[in-house]
Each structure stands twice: as C-alpha cells, then as structure tokens.
C-alpha cells in the first residue's frame, strides 16, 4: 500500500503546555495526533465551545476508518544531521494592562493581592521556527495521492496557533507479519496490540505514547526518508483512539 510521509516545519513560535513546572510552561518535542487531526482539517471542532470537554471521538467518527494520522516526531533534515529540537524561551510579565501597577508591601496591601500567590511573571519554552517533524498519514481504502491533494500545505498548531508548513511525499509500505521494533511514535490508545518488550513510553496529555517497543503483530515496513537506511516499522490497522471507541 502507499502511504503519505509528511514533513512539518515550524514557521513561527509553536507552543503548547506539555507540562507546567512552577512558573515554567514547557513544550514537548512531539506533536500528538489528537492535534494533527484538527490541524490537517480531517476533524473539525467548534468555534464556540460550551461543553469544555474534548470531543475527539465524536469529531472523528466519520473519518476514523478512512484515514489515520500518526503523532509527529522530530526529524532530521539532512541525512547526517541529528533530530535536534530548537526552543525559544520567553519570559513574560503577567501584569494587568492598567496604566500604572503599584506594588504594595505584603503587610499593607489595600488590593488584597499580596496574600494570594499571584504570578507576576512566567516563562514559556516553545518550539522555535525551523524545527522539523515527521508524521505519516495512512489512507485506508483510498488512493494516497488523492488524499494528499486534500491535505493543506500550511497548518496552525498549539496554544497561539503558530504556523507550520507541511510537505507530502507518497511512500510505499509493505505489509508484513511477525516481530518488529516500532520505528515511529504510536499513541497507546490507537492500537490494541501490546508490546512484548523494550518499551519506551511517555505519559503525555491527552494520550500516552509509545516511542519504542518490540511488538508481534501485522505491521507495515515503510520506505525510509533517506535511501540506504532501514525501513520504518509501524503496526497495521492503527486507528485514532481505537481502544476508546465502543464499536471496536
């Protein structure tokens, strides 16, 4: 089968809160497919949010059997380079936009703020421009090139919706069965197979991700991004939040 290899380059600051440590907000170098489905326009949310609960399963109900997007992991741009993620750390002051903000001593504060632990500054570590990520799009029962034409070149990601550019390449993927080592991050809920060993898993919000692991299942051996490199193995039949759906 043919699948789509997508290379994402960040073009601005892209930040989301993977963890909040004190006054620091940090962004992990992994973009989950929960975000990618929306960014690529495969699922659509709502402009006006009343329920304040994620609706991933409802939003993707119509497309889950037709297309699957993997999480995105840092990628090397050139053959010899390393997949290093560059960050942009910004200090922000979090004061109100009134003209003057007096700072009163804690013992004599008419505003009552001094005895509350209100932050006056925060730090945000976000992905800098020109970081490269790679992810795969599996078109189930559809023509890969036809699906690729429907995917946007520019997408918006993260808290302030930073811009990213995506280029697509059609690659071949051979279906095989047996043991394999996972070659690209897999969201834990996207497949019902479980690893037999060598697991590197990371707890991420909203879904944990397997970064490495040995599996014994049907899988695809995907053509590598650079020639003369080994193929990338990914379990076959992965579906977005498969184990969380009632009909599976």
């Amino acid at each position, binding site marked *: 089968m043919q699948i789509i290899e997508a290379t994402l380059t960040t073009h601005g600051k892209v930040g989301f809160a993977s963890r909040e440590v004190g006054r620091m907000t940090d962004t992990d170098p992994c973009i989950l497919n929960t975000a990618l489905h929306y960014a690529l326009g495969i699922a*659509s949310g709502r402009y006006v949010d009343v329920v304040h609960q994620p609706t991933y399963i409802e939003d993707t109900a119509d497309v889950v059997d037709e297309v699957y997007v993997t999480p995105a992991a840092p990628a090397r741009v050139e053959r010899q380079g390393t997949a290093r993620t560059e960050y942009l750390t910004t200090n922000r002051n979090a004061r109100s936009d009134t003209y003057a903000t007096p700072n009163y001593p804690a013992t004599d504060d008419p505003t009552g703020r001094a005895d509350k632990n209100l932050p006056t500054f925060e730090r945000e570590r976000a992905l800098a421009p020109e970081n490269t990520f790679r992810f795969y799009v599996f078109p189930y029962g559809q023509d890969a090139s036809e699906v690729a034409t429907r995917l946007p070149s520019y997408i918006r990601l993260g808290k302030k919706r930073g811009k990213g550019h995506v280029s697509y390449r059609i690659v071949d993927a051979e279906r095989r069965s047996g043991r394999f080592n996972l070659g690209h991050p897999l969201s834990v809920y996207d497949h019902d197979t479980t690893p037999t060993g060598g697991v590197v898993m990371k707890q991420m919000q909203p879904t944990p991700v397997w970064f490495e692991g040995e599996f014994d299942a049907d899988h695809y051996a995907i053509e590598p991004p650079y020639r003369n490199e080994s193929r990338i193995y990914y379990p076959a039949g992965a579906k977005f939040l498969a184990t969380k759906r009632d009909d599976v």
Partner: protein
Amino acid sequence: MLPESITTALESGTVPIDEMTNTPGTNYTTILALRELESHAIFTTNGEDADIASLSVVGEDASIEYSPGIMFMRKQTGSDRRMGKAIQRELLDYEEDDSMEVNNMNPRSVESALYGSAASGDDDVDIGVTSRVMYDTAFSVRDASACIDEKFQNAPGEDYAKGSRSTIREPDFFEPGSLFPCAITLRDATPAEVAFVVAITKRNKRYGAATTRLGRVKNHILGVYTGSEEGPSNRELTANVITSFAADSDYTLGDVVQAPALDISEASEYVRDAYDAACTEEVAQNPVDQAVVNELIEVAADDELEAILEAQRPHSEEFIEDAIATDGD
C-alpha cells in the same frame, strides 16, 4: 451595508453574513500587510529584552543564518483587538460593555465573536470562543544587531539625594524603519468582518509596550487574498524580501540584513511577489482585484464602517446564541 462588488470579490474566502458557521470550514481570506516602524518601539515580553529568533535564508547561490527581532503574534493581536474594541465603542452602542478585561467580555459583540473570548461576564453561560482571525509571528527583515538599540532610561524623581532604586533600565528599542511583513488570516469570516479587520489594520498605528506614546507603526496593506487554503508564513515572506533585495543589487544576503535602511516600496513589492508566487505554485488562494482592495480600504476609513458593523451585529449575536442553544443542552 457592504457594496455588492466587495461581497462578490471576497466570495471564495468568506461565508455569507447569514450563514456564519460554528463548525470550521475552508474559507480563508488573508490580508497581506507590511508593518513599518515610524518611531522607536519596544516589542518585548519581559519588559527589557527584544525577543530574537534565528532564521536561515536560502538565496540563489548563497545562504545565511541571521537573527531577526520578533514581533510576537500576541503583540499584534492585543493591539489590534484594542483598536477593534475602540472602533466598536465608537460606532455601536452595546448595553453590555465589551472590554479587554478577560473576565468581563461581551462574547456576543462583533469584535469578540470574531476575535474570540475566553470567558464571559455572564455566569449562566460559560463559553469560550475561538478566534477566527489568525496572526503569525513577524520577523524583522534586518538583523537584530542592525535594527535594535539599547537605550538607557532613568526615572529618578525629584529628590536631591538618592537611595538605591530600580528606576533605571535599558530596554531594547527597534529602530524606526524596521520592516515586518505580516499576513493576517481570517477563517470563515463574513465580508463585513473582513472589512472590520481591514479597518483595524489601517487605523491601528501603535504597537508594542507603552503603546499610547511610543511605537508608531504604519501598516501598508499590500493586498487581499481569498481561497480554500491558508497562504505562506511571515517567515517565507521575510526571507523572500531578503533574497530579492540581494538578487536585485550587488549586495550579498549578509549585506541586506545588516543594511542601514531598506527601501519600503521595493520591500512591499517583494512581499507581494512572494505571496503571489505561492498562490500560483502551491496554495489554493487567489489575489483579490486591486480596485476591490482599494474599495475595502476606503470603506474602512469612512462612516460606512458603522453601517457595515450595524449589519453584522445581529448576525454575530445569532452566531453565539445558536451555538449555545445547540451545544448547551
């Protein structure tokens, strides 16, 4: 109301005024602007240092890595939103105030329905509205070392003898003449909302810290583009300005980013060229006729804007009310 010619020209990138949708669609309108500093401006997030990124620029036969100063998207959005609220206060009479105070917005107003609101003052309806206007981090065309100066500021007060105090600082100032190519993208907006954002972009002349006194900015509106996809990023537009300056002269890429000054009309042309090229090669967007763009700008500068916002007003309210009625149960 908005003239028919504008509504028709924007058709492929907007939604009709009575068909505002809560489900994101694929109607994109991009307002292409070049922000030119006309005075010293402070764009900083910590109050002192300019934020600097690192960009690579690939020219015809050379490439460089340079460090542009950044005008964060939120610096642009915040300032534009204030201008939008000010225009709205001037032209529309709302019973419920709409301000920048995050816990006290009126999500039904034209501005908040378009730019979004995180929380309303209304305790019964707890809603969050996503912005349908998207900004993009803007990069200065020249290197930070060429367009940023530290200036010593001292506010000592009038006492004769001083103790130690923190009244001195050295913030980074962007020099007048710094250029920031900017694309502002509206998704699923109505033509009236596009006219509103054009008006805001045209009228807003203050960005950065201490906006009321410093940071005079001239926004050159270079074009409007519509289509079913989003267009190129500020990073690419900025890179194209640098490579085009180098290609059209004897300068190297390094000379351009270190230049003492750059020609604004040439830069405008390069930004427009970059966007036009992307439209023909890669992105499903098309430029709107220049006559229509001029008409949009004229409409924005006139009392006509009041009629346009009045027409938009009930539809923005309905947009929010419908969403609450549908999803709120």
